[in-house]
Structure formats: C-alpha cells, structure tokens
C-alpha cells in the first residue's frame, strides 16, 4: 500500500496529528502509529498522520493550523473554546496521578519558591488553582525540563536560601515521590478538594475537520491499545529509556509498575464524571482569575464542544430506506400504526415530518382507544420532593440547580424533619407515592439514600418513585460501584420504581450541546435496563425543543422501544417542551403546543409496546392537557402537590385532584386514580 500524502498537502481526509510521546499518551497513539493497524478510510487512505511533540507544542501547532488534531493540555482549551473535542477519550486520573507532583524538602505550605520543571499549562494551572485555594502564593519560576528536581535536592537547608519546591511532570516525575520528604501529588490534592477526577489532556481538533469515523477510530485505537498492549507499551517504553542513557534511565521503574500506571492510575475515559471534573477545573481557574475564556459570559460554566459520533446502524438503515426509490405513504403508515402494527424508524421519521396534525391525532386516538377501550383516563396523587438542589452537572436548560461551590447560601439538602412534614402532608392529601429527585450532590453517598429510604419505609406507607438514571449514575460514580449494585442496594432499602427523568433527548450530539456533563445516552439506557432487570418499573420521558431534528426525536423513541422489547419495564411515556425562562440555554426552538401534540401523537404510534402515555399539563396547562387526551394520551399524570424544577423556568400550573377530574371529564373521559404501576386506586 502506498501513501503518497505529504505533510504540506494531505488528502482531505487524512488528519495531520500532533501528539506527545509521554508514556501516558502512548495508549492513545500506539495503534495510530502501528503500520498494520493504523485506522484507514474505506479507500485505504490513512485517517491520521502522527507527529510527536511536547505538550505545549501540540497546542501551539493546533492553534497555528499546523495540524488538524492534537493531544492538548486541557489548560490550552481556555484560549481556544472553538476547538472540537473527541468525546470519550482523555488522559486523567481519579486520585493520585504519580506524574504531576510537587516535591520539596519542606512542607509545601512553607515553600517560598516553586520551580516549574517543563510543566504543561494544565499542570501549572492546576497547581495555581490548588495554591490559590490553599491561600498560598509562593514565587513560581519556570526552569528547563529535567533540572527542577536537582534544584530542590541541592537547595541548602541551613536557612540561607529560600525554601524551594519543584513541580515535575511527565515521565521525569516517576519515582520522585520516594525521593522527597514532602510531596503533593496534584491528582490526589484535586480529588481531596473536589471529589472529582482530573483530566489533563484530550484530543482537540480544528472545528469541522472531525468526522464520526475519525471519532470512532480514535476511541477504538484507545480501546485496542489498552486492551491488548498495555504491557507491551510499558516494556517498549522501559527499553527505550534504558537504551537512551538519559539521567532518568538509572531510576527506571519495573515494567510491571509502568503497566499498572497505564492500567490503573491513568484514566483514559472522558465520560460524565471526567467532564464534570474538567469543567470544575476550568471554572475554578476562571474564578481564581487565572484564565479568561473568550466569548464566555461570566455566569456560564465552560462549554466544551464535543465532536459528533457515528450514527447507529438502525439510523443508517432508515436513511438508506428514505433515500431509496420506494415511496412512503402517510395514510398507509398511519393506518397500520393506528391498528397497532409496528412501524419502522424510516416510517416514524416520515410521519413526524409529513403527517398533518389532525391525521396524526386521529390515528393516535384510535390506537389509544385500542389499548384502553374503556373511556377512562387515569391520574395519580403523589408529591414531587426535590431533596437537594446542589448539582454538579450545570445543565444549560436547568433553572433549578445550585453548584456545590455556591457561596451565596442558595443550596439546600432537606432535613428529615422537612421531609417528614412533606411526607405526612402527602399522606393526608391521599397521596400514595413520593417522586423523589434531586441534583447530583457530591456530598450525598449511597448510605445517605439507603438510610433515607429505610427511614421512609419505616415511618410512612408511601411508595418511593425515586432517583432518575442521572442520579443513579452519579451515585455509582462517587461510590465506584456498578450501576446494578447501586440499584440493588437502593431496592433493598425500599426504592420501588424509577422516574424517567434526565433523558432529555437521548442522542449524544444533542446532549453534548445542552448538558455535556450529564450522563450519555448509553448510560441512561443502561440504568433502565439494570433497574428493569431487578424488577423495578420506570417511566420514560423526552424533552424536546433543543433544535433536535426528526431523526433525533425518532431515534429517542426507537431507543426506548428497543429497550422495552428487551425488558418490558417501562410503564409510561411522557413528553414535554423545554421550558426556557431564566435558563442559560440561549438556543430557542419550537416549543409550541402544536408541536407538542404532534410529538405526542407520533410517540403514541411509534411506542407500540409502551402501554401508557401521560399528558404534561404542568408545562402546557390543563387546556392543552385536555386536548392532548385526544392526541394519544390516556393518563393525566400527577396531582403534583409540589414541583420545583419546571416551575422555576416558567411553567406555573397547579391543580387539585378535583380540577384534574373535571378536566378529564370535560375531555369526555371518566377519571380513575392509579398507582405508579397503573393499578387502580379507589378514591377515599
């Protein structure tokens, strides 16, 4: 195979890449450099052409347009918020990192000068953040790479000179911890302060050059290298080091130690929690006025643009079908769907795009009547209790959360006394369930929830419809447990079912835009799969109005339908338009009642295996709630004794059971109280 491309004139799809040669970067580039396994396009053109360079150099080259893609220190991102970041891949740690350390012969708190030894911008910034927060301000002196340790080792301890330390990064830092009395591992320090992982570097690209194929290739290259070649990389690294005759060679660690570093110490993911850590880091740096991000409003958290990933196969097939010659016919699809037949993704998209509102409504109404032949519309009396508003995810569309770093005292965690009062009121009002949801509060571990649930079950008769997948994932991450284990323990403590919140649009492209630090699509579905597997039922939701396309909406429904085929655990589906008032999300989309009815009717037709559709009157008002009962819905949701989230973003509707029953009757149905599982409850 010949590759004729030259660095100055690459073929359009071969990305010019710069990456560092540090040991911790090797799992990301090992496969890219492998002549046999380097990713190629279908026509054989290489996807990447890699040049190795120092970390700071990589960022400069990317900024100067000398390369298309680079492994850059995250600190460099502050100057280039336009860069697109490869999702799912990073270099970070959760706790000790071993290779970003400050060493000294004095306690770090007493140090008067820190030599910055070849440090990257990220590690310097991290040091500055940690020093700032510890109230320390030693002199910072850049020195050449490789001399820092010597300067500290040779410093006089008789009080004649300053108390010095060195920030040492990269491979030169291996073993430093063992050679000095006082060491700050910056990964450890960061984790102690925030409870979050640290991300030091990620793949960033000039905007617009990354295709989903590139993204997938980079993710797979990481997986392949780590999966099979960590030991080989470690050995190769050690051999090189020994052969180099460099000063560090004498202090080389064992192959096993390097392999453990790659496998355990360094975390190569860039998932929800790493993203949280990342934004926390940049935000703290900003708060300490160490960086300034161009174009970013001071109130807004850092937003990171992630590149899109490859389309799922089912979508590729639907696109193929739509571009094929055989025409789709709205009336025929509607007739089949109304009769309860399954329609495929291409047909669903076609309906959403082409069917008239009234035709969609009539078909959805027919399907509703087929599933629920009795003229009955159900509702439940429960109370939405938001136990905390502290949240680390900073979703742009949310007006409810308070970041854990908030210094204005706006955050809360409800006490048991407060909860008991709310629970007692709920019981008194005929409520049978608590819908318990809150922010992702890093202070609350699994034992908090277990205790809360047991206490609830001991003292009240209420069902616990508790914790959306987003919260479950958060707990699993802070406890380092599997999602399933967390669910099992919560179930044992008294959790009955899960609300379907946090789904928004189940598409990572949309999620990256609106809630980059929240769980991914796959993670959300995985929690539901696990919960259903344990016998817990859940609802499913979709919030639209984020400039998603018909494909995004139908893929969301497709993902739910497909999981439902597998587990049968979803009891109901609820959709509503995004409520924008006061949130930081500046995009505006069609969130009209008209679109809501279309979306709901399409959902009724597409979700042939989910029994119940709830109207969302809290966001649309009881009038549209009534009308929505003629567009596929058979449930009026909940008499929400309390609601705090959408009501802080412009939805202000409240109703009593009597009012709900009146609206159900006005729409031509008989009201019926129900449980979460849609069993009937007699009104007392």
């Amino acid at each position: 195979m010949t590759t004729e491309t030259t660095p100055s004139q690459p073929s359009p799809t071969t990305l010019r890449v710069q990456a560092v040669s540090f040991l911790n970067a090797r799992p990301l580039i090992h496969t890219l450099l492998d002549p046999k396994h380097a990713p190629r396009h279908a026509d054989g053109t290489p996807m990447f052409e890699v040049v190795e360079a120092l970390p700071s150099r990589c960022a400069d080259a990317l900024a100067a347009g000398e390369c298309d893609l680079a492994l850059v220190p995250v600190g460099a991102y502050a100057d280039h918020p336009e860069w697109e970041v490869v999702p799912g891949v990073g270099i970070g740690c959760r706790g000790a990192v071993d290779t970003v350390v400050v060493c000294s012969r004095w306690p770090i708190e007493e140090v008067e000068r820190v030599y910055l030894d070849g440090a990257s911008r990220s590690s310097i910034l991290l040091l500055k953040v940690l020093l700032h927060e510890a109230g320390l301000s030693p002199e910072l002196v850049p020195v050449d790479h490789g001399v820092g340790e010597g300067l500290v080792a040779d410093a006089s301890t008789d009080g004649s000179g300053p108390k010095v330390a060195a920030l040492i990064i990269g491979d030169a830092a291996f073993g430093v911890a063992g050679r000095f009395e006082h060491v700050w591992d910056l990964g450890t320090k960061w984790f102690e302060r925030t409870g979050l992982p640290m991300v030091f570097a990620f793949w960033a690209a000039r905007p617009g050059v990354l295709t989903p194929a590139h993204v997938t290739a980079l993710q797979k290259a990481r997986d392949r290298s780590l999966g099979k070649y960590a030991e080989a990389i470690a050995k190769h690294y050690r051999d090189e080091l020994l052969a180099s005759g460099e000063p560090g060679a004498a202090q080389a660690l064992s192959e096993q130690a390097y392999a453990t570093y790659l496998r355990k110490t360094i975390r190569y993911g860039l998932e929800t929690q790493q993203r949280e850590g990342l934004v926390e880091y940049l935000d703290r740096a900003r708060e300490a006025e160490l960086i300034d991000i161009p174009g970013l409003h001071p109130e807004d958290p850092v937003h990171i643009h992630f590149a899109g990933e490859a389309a799922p196969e089912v979508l590729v097939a639907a696109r193929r079908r739509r571009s094929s010659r055989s025409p789709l016919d709205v009336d025929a699809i509607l007739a089949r769907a109304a009769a309860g037949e399954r329609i495929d993704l291409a047909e669903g998209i076609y309906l959403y795009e082409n069917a008239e509102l009234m035709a969609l409504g009539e078909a959805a109404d027919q399907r509703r009547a087929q599933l629920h032949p009795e003229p009955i519309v159900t509702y439940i009396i429960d109370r939405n209790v938001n136990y905390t508003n502290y949240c680390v995810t900073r979703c742009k569309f949310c007006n409810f959360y308070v970041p854990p770093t908030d210094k204005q005292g706006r955050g809360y965690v409800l006490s048991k006394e407060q909860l008991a009062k709310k629970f007692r009121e709920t019981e008194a009002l005929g409520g049978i369930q608590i819908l318990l949801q809150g922010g992702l509060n890093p202070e609350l571990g699994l034992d908090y929830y277990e205790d809360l649930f047991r206490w609830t079950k001991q003292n009240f008769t209420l069902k616990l419809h508790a914790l959306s997948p987003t919260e479950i994932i958060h707990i699993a991450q802070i406890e380092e447990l599997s999602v399933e284990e967390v669910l099992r323990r919560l179930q044992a403590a008294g959790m009955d079912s899960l609300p379907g919140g946090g789904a928004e649009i189940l598409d990572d492209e949309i999620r990256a835009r609106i809630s980059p630090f929240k769980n991914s699509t796959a993670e959300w579905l995985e929690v539901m799969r696990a919960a259903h597997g344990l016998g817990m039922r859940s609802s499913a939701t979709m919030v639209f109005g984020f400039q998603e396309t018909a494909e995004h909406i139908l893929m969301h429904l497709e993902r739910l339908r497909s999981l439902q085929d597998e587990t049968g655990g979803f009891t109901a589906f609820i959709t509503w338009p995004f409520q924008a008032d006061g949130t930081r999300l500046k995009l505006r989309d069609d969130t009209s009642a008209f679109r809501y009815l279309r979306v709901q009717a399409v959902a009724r037709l597409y979700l042939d295996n989910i029994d119940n559709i709830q109207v969302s009157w809290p966001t649309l008002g009881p009038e549209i709630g009534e009308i929505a009962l003629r567009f596929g819905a058979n449930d009026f949701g909940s008499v929400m004794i309390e609601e705090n989230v959408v009501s802080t973003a412009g939805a202000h509707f409240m109703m009593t059971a009597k009012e709900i029953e009146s609206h159900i009757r006005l729409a031509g149905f008989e009201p019926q109280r129900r449980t979460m599982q849609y069993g009937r409850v007699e009104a007392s």
Partner: protein
Amino acid sequence: MNRTKDTARFARIADKVRANEALDADDGLFLYTYPDLLAVGALANERREALHGDKTFFNVNFHINPTNVCVADCKFCSFARLEPDAPAAYTMSIDEVKQKLLDRMDQPVTEIHIVNGLHHHLPLDYYKDCLRELKALRPDIHLKAYTAVEIHYFAEKYGMSYTQVLSELKEAGLDSMPGGGAEIFAERARRKLCRGKADADEWLAVHRAAHELGIRTNCTMLYGTVETLEERIDHMLRLRDLQAETGGFQTFIPLAFHADNNSLQKLPPPTGVDNLRTYAVSRLMLHNIAHIKAYWIMIGIKTAQISLSFGVDDLDGTVQEEKIYHMAGAETPQALSRVDLVRLIREAGRVAVERDTLYNERWTDDGEALDGIRIDASLPYSTQGQGVRLNVL
C-alpha cells in the same frame, strides 16, 4: 350510542359541508356531541382550508374604552361600574381619548376598537366627538366602534331610530362595528345573564340597519355560562339567517366566558376541548360567514394555536396593552407581540397575513426576519423535520 349509525350520520354531514350546504340545528347538535372530536375538527379544518388555505389573519389594533360606567348589570361582566361615582368608575374626556392615539402616533396601528359602558348621562355628541377627533388625528385609521347594545341604548335614550344613530356616527367617522353584546340570544339564558339589555331581535336589528348603511360588522357568542348546547346552535342559526339576508358580517368570534371578578364565579370556565369544539362547530354551521376568529388573549396562545387546525383563520390583533408571553432577548413589547404572533402561526404550519379591518391584505409572511428577530421557519417542519427555529440575533 350506536357507533356505526353515528359514523354514517357524520359522513352525511361531511358531504353537506363539502357541498357548502347549510347544516340544520340537529346537525349542529350532533357535531357538538359526536365523540370523535378530531373528526369534527378535521372537517372544520377542511372547510377553513377551502376558504382560506393556510392564511391566518391578524391585525394591528388597540382598544379604547372611554367609559366603564354602565346602566346594565350583566352577570358576566367585570368591567362595568353601575354609577359614575362608583369606585374605579371612569369617563375619559375627549382629550384623554385623543391622548390614547397620540401616544401611538408612530406605531403601525390600522384600527381602533372602541367599546363603552352604557353611560347614564353622556350626550350622543360625546360619542361622535370621539370618532371625529380620532379621525382628525389620523384620517387613515379605521374606527371600529360601539356595539349594537350601545347603538340600541343611544336610540332609546335620544329617541332616534337605529338608522339615524348609525348615520350620524358614520358621518362622524365610524367605519365598522364590533360584534359584542350578542351574548347568547336565547331568551331564557338572556334573562338570567343580562336582563334589560338589548334583546336578540334588537341586537340583530341594529346589525341589519348597519349592514343596510354599508357598515360591516362582526358578531359574537358568549358561551360557557348558563346556556345549553341547543341555545348555542340557535344563536349561530340566527346569525346565519341575518347573514343570508344582508351579507354584512365579516367574522364570527366565539367568546369563552371567564369567571373572574363577576357574579358567575361558581361556573367552571369552558376549557380546551369545549373551546376547540365550539370553533369547529361554528366554522361548520356558519357556512356563509367568511371568518372565524379566536381571541388568543382570552383562550391563551396555546389553545389559540391549536384552534388554527379546528376551523379558526383569524387570531385578532396584536393588542398593544396586553403583556404577551416573553421571549429571551426581548426587543420592545410591541415588536415582540408581532413576532410572537407570527411565530405561533408559523409553528402551526400556517401563513400569517396582516389584514386591515375589512380583510384587505397588508402584509404576507415571507418567512424572513422580523424586527431584528430571525424566525427560522423558512423551511417548514413538514419538509425539514426540524421544527421552527428561532434565534435572537
């Protein structure tokens, strides 16, 4: 209920609608009670599209209510004050009336809607002067003034015929008449609601006189109070009969009753489904009245938007003093009201048309930016599947 029989009956009614034949009272009642709301809506929508396609009309107007002092004691009214010196009672001077327009001289208003209480003492000249002075300020503006109830009251009070009153007002600048005061025609309901006010025949006679003088008018129906469905249908049929005679009605406006601050508070308000059904049935029954209007101020913009698929083709004006729901990145309230109205029409897949009072088309939405706000709906949802995008520049 026999479902098959009903379906067949509905189909027969649909045939009549498609042939543009008049439906009878039984048909109307059947449509009001037919369980398949969407079938009724779709039929009304078919009729609406046959008449107007996707056009959805609005106009830019504002309201002046020179006095709220009123001798009538209508049970559904929160506006009137029974005595000139009652708390919150007011009567504007002619200068104050003029000031309302002077405050808006730079605005693209094409119509002023003027309605009053039935004042105990004011002379007819007061009402004529209002018209004359407003016309003097802006001769091009259309004055849609005084309901049939006021005209009837003037005629009685000043001992004149309807035609005399109307001629004098027309001479003073009156261009057309609003449709208020019709309430519900049925005697039984009218006695309970507004005893002593112009009755059905009087209301209709005023409009007949107006039509004969070439004054176009609107007509209304207040529903959701004490009336029965039969009485609603009866109301529509009486309007239809006069229209067959004169052709002078432009628009029918069903008015949902609101129970705040009046003596009918114990009634539940008509809501989503009843509103939509009333629009649809009106569209189907009033085959000879061109337009059906939804007052979005009254029923809320969400239901108003959906009503565009249930027979409604007119969304009233951008009422300047109403505070419209607010968009992030707001411009002026006036600019927003227009943008919001056009946006909700675009979202519903229709084409906004600004009209004057007589339905001359002044501006047709071309999908472009409005007042610095880009409503990115040049590609309708039906072809792009992306919904309507709106970005504040």
